């Protein structure tokens, strides 16, 4: 693996002492239900989000989204002429996505260099966004989407999808629909929508022992699922149930995102001539 020699790095391997705490003591007790933590949020409730467009002045479009402590920033550059002239796909534009987790975003310090995990996240983001963008309107050009996760308090990938489509819309890229992301965690029989970090990494085995995580990207107006990713153990019924829950979550957040976009458009409009 290539190492960045410009930085003075610590020992080859170092661990945060918190990793060695007995599980459960440090984490907030995210039980099967959310009665205790997180205020009054029910299992099927998503966190309230705060979203703004257009905060990176250099970028063509940008967005910031905050859900609980999960904070994601995204900027869009382009469309501009493709760098690599691939003969194959000249009729449509090329969408590039890049997801990065800030080293301090998780409990364990990450690396600055993009690892395989981040590449995988980038791919998911790309495949979720691509169906929503009218790429045929941008022949020979490329559009770059850069997502930086500032703080990870669970479900960051889902919020990254929402944030990225907000930024794309802010950049004036033609889209069929705003792509919404939502995540769910299933532990035993309970579905927790939009889980926090503690809920995601809850080590307490549920009675049935089956745990799974699911991230879904939806285009609400078209009713099309553009991204789906699930891992863990689940049976088909619970998987479908969790996916439906995520779609519900997307529909709940959709008006908020629409309002955010409208607000940013209104801001851009020149003052009415009196």
């Amino acid at each position, binding site marked *: 693996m290539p190492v960045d020699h410009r930085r003075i790095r610590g020992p080859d391997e170092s*661990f945060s002492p918190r*990793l*060695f705490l007995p599980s459960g003591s440090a984490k907030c007790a995210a039980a099967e239900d959310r009665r205790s933590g997180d205020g009054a949020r029910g299992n099927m409730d998503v966190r309230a989000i705060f979203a703004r467009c257009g905060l990176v002045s250099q970028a063509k479009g940008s967005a910031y989204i905050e859900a609980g402590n999960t904070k994601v920033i995204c900027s869009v550059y382009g469309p501009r002429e493709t760098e690599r002239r691939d003969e*194959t796909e000249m009729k449509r534009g090329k969408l590039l996505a890049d997801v990065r987790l800030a080293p301090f975003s998780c409990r364990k310090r990450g690396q600055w260099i993009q690892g*395989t*995990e981040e*590449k*995988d996240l980038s*791919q998911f983001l790309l*495949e979720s966004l*691509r*169906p*929503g963008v009218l790429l045929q309107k941008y022949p020979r050009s490329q559009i770059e989407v850069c997502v930086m996760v500032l703080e990870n308090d669970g479900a960051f990938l889902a919020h990254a999808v929402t944030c990225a489509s907000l930024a794309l819309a802010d950049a004036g890229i033609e889209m069929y629909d705003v792509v919404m992301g939502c995540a769910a965690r299933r532990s035993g029989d309970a579905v927790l929508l939009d889980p926090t970090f503690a809920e995601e990494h809850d080590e307490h085995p549920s009675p049935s*022992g*089956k*745990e*799974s995580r*699911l991230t879904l990207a939806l*285009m609400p107006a*078209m*009713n*099309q*699922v*553009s*991204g*789906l*990713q*699930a*891992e*863990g*153990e*689940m*049976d*088909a019924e619970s*998987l*479908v149930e969790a*996916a*439906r829950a995520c*779609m519900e979550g997307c529909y709940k957040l959709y008006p908020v995102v629409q309002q955010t976009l409208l607000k940013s458009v209104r801001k851009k409009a020149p003052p009415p001539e009196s």
Partner: protein
Amino acid sequence: MATVQVSEAEKVYILHGVRDDLRVDGRGCEDYRHMDIETDVVSNTDGSAKVSLGYSDVLVGVKAEVGKPRPALPDQGYLEFFVDCSANATPEFEGRGGEELGLELSNTLYKVFSNKQSVDLHSLCISPGEHCWVLYVDVLLLQCDGNLFDAISIAIKAALFNTRIPKVHLSEDEEGGKEIELSDDPYDCVRLNVENVPCIVTLCKIGHRHVVDATLQEKACSVASLLIATTHRGTVTCVRKFGGGSLDPESIFEMIETGKRVGKALHTPLMELLKEEESLGKKRQKVGFLG
């Protein structure tokens, strides 16, 4: 991925064929191509298997090494996946060309195995917090003719079935230092329980229907595919959408149902075949790469 060009009229032909449940090569929508499976093909590994599915050829080698457990999970061993897209398969993989596909494949494999059920990771622990077995699962693509995920997962299951991990004995000296002793007898081995190792089924959406085991031509006609990994009991361990298109929620649920059914049905013949091969013992006709 090795790509093929397909003209519009050919696409229409394939599309209508899928609608009529008769594909270009005579298969129905839920039929696999012929599969050849052979284990124990590379002598330097602890377990290996070669699977050919149509003209896709996959070779998997498993090597067991002693390593340090992950600090978060001190009493478990772990699996490492690496997929190499050999330029033998297609010139597109030359240089760094295959890197992206290789990464996509190996990342997905991590996801497929990221649960407590697939492989009993506790059995790979030698001494908690200090030593454990690390299984390096190296996948080599020799020929690409579509549907790599399914072929790889079957090859991995076969290779893990074939894997024999040497027995080790942990001894403690007076000062409390621990020592690992390897058994002298090379046949003194532990085997893995592969019953719960999932198989991957990739469903390609073509027109209004979906097909399993798509060829490259069929893949060129589809905008989105869904990958579903299931165990023999029908527990789903991974689902993922691939491709640049989007899917209707209802069709996703349908595809999950099909994937689960097809995946479940893959395990029985596979296990039977592996057991049959093992029972042949030395009488087995070794074919290796000449098949």
